[in-house]
C-alpha cells in the first residue's frame, strides 16, 4: 500500500500510524513511513507514537452523536431530533450542535488518538433550545446544553463552534484530570475548555497559530453589544467593552490575578492567565497549534501530574515535563512552553 502525502493530510496519517489493529498493520506502517518524509516535527511525533499516551485496553471507539430539542423547556434531555448518521434537521441549532460534536471528536480522535470524551467512545449528547430566552450554554455532567439567548445580548450559543467544543472539553476534563471547579484548579478547568475549544475551530479552518483569531464565543453577541467575543487567548481582557456588560475582566498575567468569591472563585476570569500561556507557546512554535502546544497540553492532562486541586504552578510544571518527554529536554517545544509560563508570571 502506498500513501501519498500530497493527498492524505498529516492528521489522518497520524491517526493511521497510531492504529494498533494487526489487520491494518500495512496501512499503519505506510502512514508512519509517510510521516517520516514530511518534516522534523512530524518525524518526532511519528517516533513518539511508538509510546502511546493512553494506558489500559486500546478500545477503538466510534463517533456516536445524539442531539435533543428541549422545546424551550428547562427539562433534560428533551426529544431526540438527530442521531448519528441521520440527515440534517433543518434546525440551525440542532445541526450546528451535531457538526460541532463531530469536529470536537475529530480533533481528539485524529490528533491525539482519544475516542470521545472518555477515551472509549462514549456517545456525545447535546440538548438545544433549552429554556426560554436562556442566555447560557453549560455542561451538566452528562451532556452539553444550549440556550437560544435572550436576543438582546446573546444570540443562540451554538453559533460559535468554540462554544460547542468548550462545553464538550468539560466532558473530557471530567473523565481525565477532573479538575475541581473552584479557584485555580477551576480556572485551569475553564482554560482547558477554551484551549481545546479554539483548537477544534482552528483545525476545522486549517489555520496556523499566527492566522487564528484565538477568540472564544465569537458571533454569539447580538449586534447591540460592543464586543467581538467572550474571551481572547491572544489578548485577555479585550474581548468586549460594553455599556451593559462592562469590560472583559480577564487578566493575562499573575500580576493582575483577580481574587473573588463570585463565579466559583473567578474560574472564568483567571483562566485568562493559562489561556495566554498557551497562546504564547503556540505562537512561538508557529504552525498548527493543535500539533505542538496542543499535543503537549493533551499529554500533560493524561500524564498523571495534574491532581484535582491543581494550581497554576503545578499545571505549568506538568506541561514542561510533557514537552520534554515528547519533544526532548532541549527541544524548542520545551523551551517555548517554559518561557510562556515565565512570561505570564506563573513560573519565576
Amino acid at each position: 500500500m502506498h500513501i501519498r502525502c500530497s493527498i492524505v493530510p498529516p492528521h489522518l496519517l497520524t491517526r493511521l500510524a497510531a492504529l494498533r489493529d494487526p489487520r491494518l498493520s500495512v496501512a499503519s506502517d505506510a502512514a508512519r513511513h509517510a510521516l517520516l518524509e514530511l518534516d522534523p516535527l512530524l518525524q518526532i511525533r511519528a517516533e513518539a507514537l511508538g509510546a502511546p499516551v493512553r494506558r489500559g485496553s486500546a478500545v477503538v471507539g466510534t463517533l456516536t452523536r445524539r442531539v435533543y430539542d428541549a422545546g424551550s423547556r428547562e427539562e433534560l434531555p428533551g426529544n431526540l431530533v438527530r442521531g448519528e448518521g441521520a440527515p440534517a434537521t433543518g434546525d440551525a441549532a440542532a445541526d450546528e450542535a451535531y457538526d460541532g460534536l463531530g469536529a470536537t471528536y475529530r480533533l481528539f480522535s485524529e490528533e491525539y488518538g482519544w475516542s470521545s470524551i472518555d477515551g472509549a467512545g462514549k456517545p456525545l449528547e447535546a440538548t438545544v433550545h433549552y429554556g426560554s430566552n436562556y442566555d447560557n450554554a453549560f455542561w451538566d455532567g452528562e451532556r452539553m446544553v444550549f440556550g437560544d439567548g435572550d436576543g438582546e445580548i446573546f444570540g443562540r450559543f451554538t453559533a460559535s463552534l468554540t462554544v460547542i467544543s468548550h462545553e464538550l472539553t468539560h466532558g473530557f476534563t471530567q473523565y481525565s484530570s477532573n479538575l475541581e471547579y473552584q479557584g485555580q484548579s477551576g480556572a485551569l478547568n475553564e482554560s482547558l475548555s477554551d484551549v481545546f475549544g479554539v483548537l477544534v475551530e482552528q483545525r476545522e479552518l486549517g489555520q496556523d497559530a499566527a492566522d487564528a483569531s484565538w477568540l472564544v464565543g465569537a458571533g454569539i453577541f447580538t449586534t447591540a453589544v460592543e464586543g467581538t467575543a467572550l474571551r481572547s487567548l491572544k489578548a485577555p481582557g479585550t474581548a468586549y467593552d460594553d455599556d451593559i456588560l462592562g469590560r472583559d475582566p480577564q487578566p493575562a498575567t499573575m500580576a493582575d490575578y483577580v481574587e473573588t468569591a463570585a463565579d466559583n472563585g473567578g474560574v472564568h476570569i483567571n483562566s485568562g492567565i493559562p489561556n495566554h500561556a498557551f497562546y504564547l507557546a503556540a505562537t512561538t512554535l508557529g504552525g498548527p497549534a493543535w500539533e505542538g502546544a496542543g499535543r503537549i497540553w493533551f499529554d500533560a492532562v493524561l500524564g498523571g501530574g495534574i491532581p484535582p486541586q491543581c494550581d497554576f504552578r503545578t499545571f505549568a510544571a506538568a506541561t514542561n515535563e510533557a514537552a520534554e518527554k515528547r519533544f526532548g529536554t532541549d527541544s524548542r517545544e520545551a523551551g517555548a512552553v517554559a518561557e510562556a509560563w515565565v512570561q505570564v508570571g506563573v513560573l519565576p
Partner: protein
Amino acid sequence: MRIEITRSGGFGGLTRTWSLEVSRTEAEQRWLPLAEAAADEGAGGAPSDGSAAGGGAGPRGRGPARDRFTYRIAIGYTEVDLPESRLGDPWRELIDRARAAGTDDGAGTGTGTGTGTGTGTGLRDAGPARSSSADPGKPEELL
C-alpha cells in the same frame, strides 16, 4: 424591603444583578423562610430540572456541572447562595419579577472587594456582594 439577586458564573462568567422592593410582610412570610430552608439544605438539595445528580456547580464547585449560573439572593441581611439547578418555582418567580422590574443594576465582573452584608444565615463567606448603591447601571471597575 429590598431583595437583591446576583447571578454569577455561566459560560461568559458575566455577573448581573437585579433588585426589587417587596413589602416587609411578603419578605417575612414568604421569602425569608424559603431562604432559611435553602440555607439549611446546603448543597445537598436535589436538582429540579432533571440534570445530572448533584446538578449545580454549587459551593466549592461540587457536582459535575460546568458553566452553570449561581444565584445569590439577599433579602435584607439574609443571603442564600443557590446553584441554578436548585432553583424551585418560587425562586424563579422572584427572579422573573426582579428582571421584569427593570431595575437591572447592570452587569459587571463581580470582582469588587466589597465585604458583603451576609451576616444573617452564616453562609461560608459573604464575598463581593455588589453594592447597588455604587453607581447603579455601571459595571464595577476592576481592581
